[in-house]
């Protein structure tokens, strides 16, 4: 055996080793990440999974030397014999782009808006390769082809002339222009629609395999991580709580947080009786730096968990967990996991008679800058008494426009809407009596809980207004505010607080309470959980379910997420480009889609069977359409 082994890139040889990386804000000394360890082998893909505030994005920035001012990283991150965390700006320049590349979340803001795509690629090429203008252009076109863009005219276009998916492809090509050994992808598909998300992730995986490049994928979505990565690191409030091979973590999580996250995610393939939600919301890293970071929300937490930070202990082959009670609670965790597999009783197909909302051949045309866009095109939808109806579709499918027309925020261009027997083509033409009746029939829960509450008013003020707007009779308004808060799982003391002191989940609870204040018969929920952390989503979905069964109200549930719609609706409409392409009982539509588009949507839901990211020619076609 020769003592001189060639330094070939074989799997298993680590290219990047991070040990005890700590990131903190220097001005107030608050940690953002308390400790992160990572071993990345050549050609390997690691997923760092975490919710907001976990410190995952800051970790990515630390590993490419672009932390914002006032934030510093300590510890070691060994790469090619040097510690990245101690490099000077000059030294970083030989690392960034050439050794480590990065792409970020939002393709709409990542590319220079005043530069043509060809220029962006050309300037990203290695400067020491002295190429002529024509050669640079040819190289840019070749790089675009690598990311599946065969349309050469893209080099002449500005980023704002391209779709989100196309922009993300251009960004990937630019990030890889200097052929880095490691690619850090920070939520590369989060801002994209489900179908495009799959295409972009498949593209990254394909390039990774072709180049033998290592990948760090940073995501909030466990399903995406399982489907894309070899190994998973779960980050919670600034510290790693569990690491392991993707399949192992998925089949048997060994930390209560990982398990909670898995359970709170609604499965795509079946309806479960109730989601197992994690109570509370994500704490900041600074608040939990002296204890198990999950102890405040863990059902198994005891004093020992709050007494110092537990070590990240080896609990199996290539498997680590930070839970000190794992030996005691392992059995219980396994039992909970199998219990959650139970399927719910599938609701009987067939709908009740009384239509509460009847939308008939409705149409909505927007005019902007001389162009007309048909947002909703000849759509008919009905919501029956006590029923939960889902509308699923990608962005731009017209689903939100329908919700807005139902509550009078937009007027339809054609067709008819009948709510509880009152025709509501135009809200301004209604009598005050009818309008009041309608407001008490239909209420809305909006997508973004951060802006759906007036930031200058207290929670109590908002609820009081909701109660007194239609009921001037007075009575014990304070008492009813307290009742409402209680019915959404908040204590009466929340009435004194302002929205800024509430977490996203708490705000969405208040928004639901406000909608319930007029005791409506239909609740329109427009993406009610998509702005929330995964561990909080299940709480809100459960709350909506509870409210519905307790009060017997109907629900129109609008979402892009097929797994959520399976949990939350009995009857389903699938929308695409402003039209309803398929409708029927939720279970049968999702189990046996009859339309190509529904099947494509279903196919785009991340699944860990190894087939999800295998794409064919459809990928290339989709790339050039935008």
């Amino acid at each position, binding site marked *: 055996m020769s003592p001189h082994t060639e330094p070939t890139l074989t799997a298993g040889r680590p290219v990047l080793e991070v040990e005890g990386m700590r990131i903190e804000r220097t001005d107030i000394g608050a940690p953002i990440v308390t400790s992160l360890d990572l071993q990345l082998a050549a050609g390997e893909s690691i997923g760092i999974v975490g919710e907001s505030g976990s410190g995952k994005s800051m970790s990515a920035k630390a590993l490419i030397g672009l932390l914002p001012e006032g934030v510093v990283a300590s510890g070691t991150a060994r790469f090619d014999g040097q510690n990245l965390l101690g490099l000077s700006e000059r030294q970083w320049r030989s690392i*960034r*782009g050439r050794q480590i590349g990065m792409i970020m979340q939002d393709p709409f*803001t990542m590319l220079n808006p005043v530069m043509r795509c060809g220029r962006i690629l050309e300037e990203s090429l290695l400067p020491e390769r002295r190429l002529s203008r024509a050669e640079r252009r040819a190289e840019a076109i070749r790089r675009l082809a690598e990311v599946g863009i065969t349309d050469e005219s893209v080099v002449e276009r500005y980023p704002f002339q391209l779709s989100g998916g196309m922009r993300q492809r251009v960004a990937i090509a630019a990030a890889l222009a*200097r052929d880095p050994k490691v690619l850090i992808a920070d939520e590369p598909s989060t801002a994209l629609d489900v179908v495009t998300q799959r295409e972009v992730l498949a593209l990254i995986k394909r390039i990774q395999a072709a180049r033998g490049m290592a990948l760090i994928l940073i995501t909030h979505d466990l399903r995406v991580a399982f489907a894309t990565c070899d190994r998973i690191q779960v980050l919670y409030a600034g510290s790693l709580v569990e690491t392991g091979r993707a399949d192992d973590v998925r089949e048997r999580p060994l930390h209560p947080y990982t398990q909670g996250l898995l359970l709170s995610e609604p499965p795509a393939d079946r309806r479960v009786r109730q989601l197992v939600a994690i109570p509370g919301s994500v704490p900041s890293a600074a608040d939990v730096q002296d204890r198990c970071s999950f102890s405040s929300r863990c059902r198994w937490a005891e004093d020992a968990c709050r007494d110092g930070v537990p070590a990240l202990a080896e609990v199996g082959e290539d498997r680590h967990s930070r839970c000190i009670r794992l030996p005691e609670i392992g059995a219980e965790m396994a039992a909970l996991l199998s219990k959650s597999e139970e399927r719910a009783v599938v609701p009987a197909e067939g709908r009740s008679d009384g239509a509460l909302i009847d939308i008939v051949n409705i149409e909505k045309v927007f005019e902007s800058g001389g162009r007309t866009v048909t947002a909703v095109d000849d759509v008919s939808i009905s919501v029956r008494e006590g029923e939960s109806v889902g509308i699923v579709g990608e962005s731009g499918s017209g689903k939100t426009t329908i919700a807005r027309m139902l509550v009078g925020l937009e007027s339809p261009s054609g067709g008819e809407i009948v709510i509880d027997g009152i025709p509501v083509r135009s809200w301004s033409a209604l009598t005050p009596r009818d309008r009041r009746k309608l407001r008490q029939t239909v209420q809305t829960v909006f997508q973004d809980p951060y802006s759906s509450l007036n930031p200058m008013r207290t929670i109590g003020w908002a609820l009081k207004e909701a109660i007194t707007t239609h009921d001037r009779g007075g009575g014990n308004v304070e008492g009813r505010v307290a009742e409402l808060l209680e019915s959404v799982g908040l204590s009466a003391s929340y009435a004194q607080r302002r929205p800024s002191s509430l977490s996203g989940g708490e705000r969405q609870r208040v928004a639901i309470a406000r909608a319930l204040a007029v005791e409506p018969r239909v609740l329109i929920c427009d993406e009610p959980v998509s702005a929330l952390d995964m561990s909080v989503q299940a709480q809100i979905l459960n709350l909506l379910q509870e409210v519905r069964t307790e009060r017997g109200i109907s629900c129109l549930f609008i979402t892009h997420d097929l797994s959520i719609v399976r949990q939350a609706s009995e009857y389903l409409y699938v929308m695409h480009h402003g039209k309803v392409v398929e409708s029927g009982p939720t279970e049968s539509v999702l189990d046996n889609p009859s339309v190509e588009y529904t099947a494509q949507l279903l196919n785009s839901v991340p699944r860990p069977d190894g087939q999800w990211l295998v794409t064919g020619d459809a990928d290339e076609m989709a790339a050039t359409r935008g």
Partner: protein
Amino acid sequence: MTGRAILLMIGKRLVALVVLVAILSFLVFSLVHIAPGTAVDAYLGGKPATPELVQLLTERYHLDEPFFTQYWLWLKDALVFDFGESTLTTLPVTDEIGIRLGPSAFLAVYAYVLTVLLGVVPGIIAALRQRKLLDRGLVAGAVVALSTPPFVMGILLLYLFAVLVPIFPAAGRGEGFFDQLWHLTLPALALALCVAAFLLRHTRASMINVLDQDYIMFARARGLSWGHVLFRYAFRNALIPVVTVSGALLAFFFAGAVFVEATFSLGGIGELLVQSAQSSDMPMIQALAILIAVLIVLANLLADLAYVAIDPRIRFEGRSA
């Protein structure tokens, strides 16, 4: 936006200009009749009303015609740059204005160059040294400069650099290019500092906003040098909103010029306007009001064209400014 679309935009703006000037000319013409006393009094400008003079003025300005006919006749004359004679000097208004255009133009160009230099450059430096001592100093200085109107700044500058340390002349406008430059330095500074302070704050805010954008970080993550990112990315994008406000800045600029010319007695258009306002020299006021309005609107059009040139999103999406 194609060349044709740009021409179309210029065409539209010129039409708007004509409409604006038409409305304005009517308002300006009406001033004669709104002014205290009769129209003849307005044109007399304080001279004794001898029957001959009254007769002459009535004929000259068609004062015996109905109001709208008067306006029409006045407008026809105005279109060939005949605004009548100054009541103060009895010289034709257009001639008076003609001799005073030179110094005003020199001052305006000089002060504009200073404004851009003193506004944009320190604004960028302040943004790059955000929250450092230099940044705080520049921001504080900007507030003071912004609060000091050109006529106060003019007198302070005169005191500092013509009285205390006499390196600049206290009055006059000089002969020849360099002599004029020397004479007009203090007036140009007095005019530039206030507007530059506004520009500094705007540039700084815009630059800070741009430096915070994802595309800056993505460019650095690709290994592009800081200088490249700064020049090809940050400056270009930060200048877009700066160019956008430059139209509004022009209004400040023109008003300031009037005060500076009055302070330094430069014998320009602004000083002429003040003199004619003080002595209610009607024909002069009318001509100057229209001249200044046309200049401002044309300058605004230039600012809009610069905006189209610098931001491709406007060019392609036709989001008109």
